[in-house]
């Protein structure tokens, strides 16, 4: 980008994910009771909001340090009803996108949330946490914290929670209860923890470190879109875009790394040209939307027992049909469905157990900004003999799969993913555990909803008919997933059938994450759309 982004104006969790720096998080939903006092809240709390200014970090490209890392990183978002409660001008409200006005509950039919297997009576929200079911939320606050050696959030998290409670009481905001099964006042989330091998001698306790896995056992969040301006200088953006940006057709004699480029800023931040080379329509005045983006918040429950039992069962059949050990069959089936092996190795690069082992021997210990995990394409595998076209990762980020040469049909469907596990990994379906799945994008309908509707809960673009995503798709009785093979080989395709619902919604909504300028305008009540 020829001009730097105004980092002091953009909320901090948009340009970078917070999970690695802040493994613990707490989400609170607030309800405004009085418009004027609500604006006072926004104005006062604005000073707490973490911006995108860079702090010292282990990230290779974050070189220009502009601020110190906050103890607790804080973000704020608003629902449409929140904007209504804050009495934004009608001319501003009327031009906001329809799906944002609807909110997530009303979009259940589009998102497929009303067609999960356990929903016999078509009540889309019967399994949702009460706090999301009522659709009362006006504001979401995200508090992000580091953890101590025992794996607990730092004391700052409770301190900031207390501050927020006091400010809400002062400004007449309700903190909505009804998260999880205990009617909690907030949703806690934390990266999964693993003993790091050290024992603190004086306390005789094991110490823990966060691991980037989710409850099913997969390493998660390896790949994320990279956009122009995200890392501060064109060289850094270009380097980070390899495997994560947009892909151009190959040019003879040029390096494959040069095929990648950062996506247009406007796909993820409002007020900038997007991949159609136009600045998307925004509610007036521009300042209320510019440097902001939309947040999709989904609490996704993971049925750990169903997942494990299913793969144990299917692996027996696969092992028998393909004459491989059951343990290998289980790993192969999971990898073919996810598009990555459990440890994140892409199936497009290593499609057999032997190749997987060879990959790990070659790339030992390099998980991170390493191109081996992200720099791959599907052009040489049109029928999915290596990585099935309908695998979770390939269908949601199609790379060059749809054209065979470039990512032209993928570039306008990218989403920034900010997932964070909640709850403890158990061996059960019941309980409160899963992923707080957060998505950021400039256009919820074109980006997130398209991916969810067309690529997750429908299979046509993956040449899979009505088959939904094998991992996160909804189930309508006769679910199946086909593991294709090379048609020239002697191998037989495998049909994995009768998959239960692995992932279920527990609630969520659409929010807008305004810029610091917009927060000030909202707080001061000085939005002039004329």
């Amino acid at each position, binding site marked *: 980008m020829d001009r730097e982004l105004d980092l002091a104006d953009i909320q901090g969790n948009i340009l970078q994910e917070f999970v690695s720096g802040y493994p613990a998080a707490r989400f609170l939903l607030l309800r405004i009771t009085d418009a004027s006092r609500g604006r006072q809240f926004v104005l006062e709390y604005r000073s707490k909001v973490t911006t995108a200014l860079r702090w010292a970090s282990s990230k290779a490209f974050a070189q220009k340090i502009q601020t110190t890392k906050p103890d607790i990183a804080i973000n704020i978002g608003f629902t449409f009803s929140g904007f209504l409660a804050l009495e934004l001008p009608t001319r501003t409200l009327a031009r906001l996108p329809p799906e944002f006005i609807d909110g997530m509950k009303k979009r259940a*039919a589009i998102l497929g949330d009303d067609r999960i297997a356990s929903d016999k009576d078509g009540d889309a929200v019967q399994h949702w946490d009460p706090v999301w079911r009522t659709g009362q939320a006006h504001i979401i606050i995200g508090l992000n914290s580091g953890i101590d050696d025992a794996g607990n959030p730092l004391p700052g998290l409770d301190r900031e929670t207390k501050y927020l409670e006091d400010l809400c009481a002062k400004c007449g905001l309700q903190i909505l209860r009804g998260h999880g099964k205990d009617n909690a006042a907030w949703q806690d989330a934390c990266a999964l923890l693993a003993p790091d091998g050290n024992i603190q001698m004086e306390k005789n306790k094991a110490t823990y470190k966060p691991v980037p896995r989710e409850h099913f056992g997969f390493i998660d969040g390896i790949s994320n879109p990279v956009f122009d301006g995200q890392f501060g200088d064109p060289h850094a953006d270009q380097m980070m875009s390899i495997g994560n940006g947009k892909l151009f057709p190959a040019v003879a004699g040029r390096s494959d790394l040069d095929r990648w480029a950062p996506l247009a800023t406007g796909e993820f931040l409002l007020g900038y040209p997007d991949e159609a080379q136009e600045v998307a329509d925004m509610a007036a005045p521009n300042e209320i939307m510019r440097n902001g983006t939309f947040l999709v918040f989904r609490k996704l429950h993971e049925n750990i027992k169903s997942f494990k039992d299913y793969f144990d069962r299917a692996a027996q*059949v696969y092992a*028998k049909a393909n004459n491989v050990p059951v343990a290998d069959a289980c790993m192969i089936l999971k990898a073919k469905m996810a598009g990555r092996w459990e440890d994140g190795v892409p199936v497009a690069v290593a499609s057999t157990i032997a190749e997987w082992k060879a990959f790990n021997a070659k790339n030992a210990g390099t998980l991170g900004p390493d191109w081996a995990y992200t720099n791959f394409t599907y052009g040489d595998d049109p029928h999915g003999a290596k990585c099935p076209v309908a695998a979770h990762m390939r269908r949601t980020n199609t790379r060059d799969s749809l054209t065979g040469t470039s990512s032209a049909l993928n570039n306008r469907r990218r989403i920034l993913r900010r997932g964070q596990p909640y709850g403890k990994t158990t061996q059960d379906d019941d309980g409160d555990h899963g992923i707080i799945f957060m998505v950021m994008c400039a256009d919820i309908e074109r980006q997130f909803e398209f991916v969810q509707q067309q690529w997750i809960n429908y299979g046509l673009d993956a040449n899979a008919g009505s088959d939904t995503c094998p991992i996160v798709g909804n189930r309508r009785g006769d679910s199946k997933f086909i593991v294709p093979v090379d048609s020239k080989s002697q191998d037989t395709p495998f*049909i*994995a*059938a009768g998959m239960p619902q692995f992932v279920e919604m527990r609630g969520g909504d659409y929010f807008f994450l305004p810029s610091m300028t917009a927060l000030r305008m909202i707080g001061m009540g000085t939005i002039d759309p004329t």
Partner: protein
Amino acid sequence: MPTFDGGHCFLTALFPINSADVVDHNGQKCSHAQRVREALSVLPTAHQSPATDRAPCNSPFARCTKTHFARFLVLDDVIFNGRMPQDALAVTIMGEDPLVPKPRDRLPGPYLFFVADFDAPQGMDTELRDWLRGVWTKMHSDLDPIFAHCFQYAAKVSNADSFADYVMSHRLETTMPFNDYWPLESPPQLPTLSLGLLAVTAAIAAAAAGYGLWWLLDLAQLTARTGFWRWLEILLVVLAGLGAGIYLAYRRVIKAGLKPFPMAPNSDLPSILKGLYLQRRLIPKVAELQGKSQQELFDEMSAFLNAMQVDNMQAPTQAPGTIQ
């Protein structure tokens, strides 16, 4: 690309809706166009999407085992998209007054628009007529409330034959049908135009036209001139030849383009429905048999194929009007 293509008929028909008077409906005065829209809004849609797959009634077109697709709509008028852009300087020089409105196209009244795609393997009008007769026989009580408000329907239509006459007298040529039944893996063998042959044809036409013009000029004793006029004559002869050559090549390309697309194998509706039926049952069966012994495979697949009656297009099969 004509109305008949790929073994299907792509019918397009436009029916003027009465606009002269109003009708009394349950004590309320309303226009014929309103009544057509009301009738269409209660015509059941096929069980084709999550919005309708649990609806109590199926589309009446599902009673016909030839119809792939059918749609009605009301066309109110052509869209006026504002004045054609003009160069402000040109307008000033021409002395036009930009405040004077430009003429714009309008339809004389609302039209009922009907499109359908159905089996017509021979590509003949008799097939269209048979289909229309079938539609009338199977669903005229559903069609009456819609067509009753169209021009001359009540006066002209009383049975299957008169319905076929009525629709056929209102049809338009379909210029761009969409037929999606050819598998990507085995595309049809299409007649191709050889570029060389096309060039030879064009060259012969060019030579004939050029020579003809020269002969005419000669006959009129106009070829004796020299200098500038001589060169002008040669230029005219060359241009005439070129024009004739290009025109003939163009005609041949257009003529070839008008040839109907061949019918895809097994693309009539009963075969499509049978195909879907088999597909939906085969995959679970294969999933169930994975890992079984050769003998078990043989026995179970034999029983399965017998039960499926693969060559019987009529039964067992999937009901029309259902997309799952």
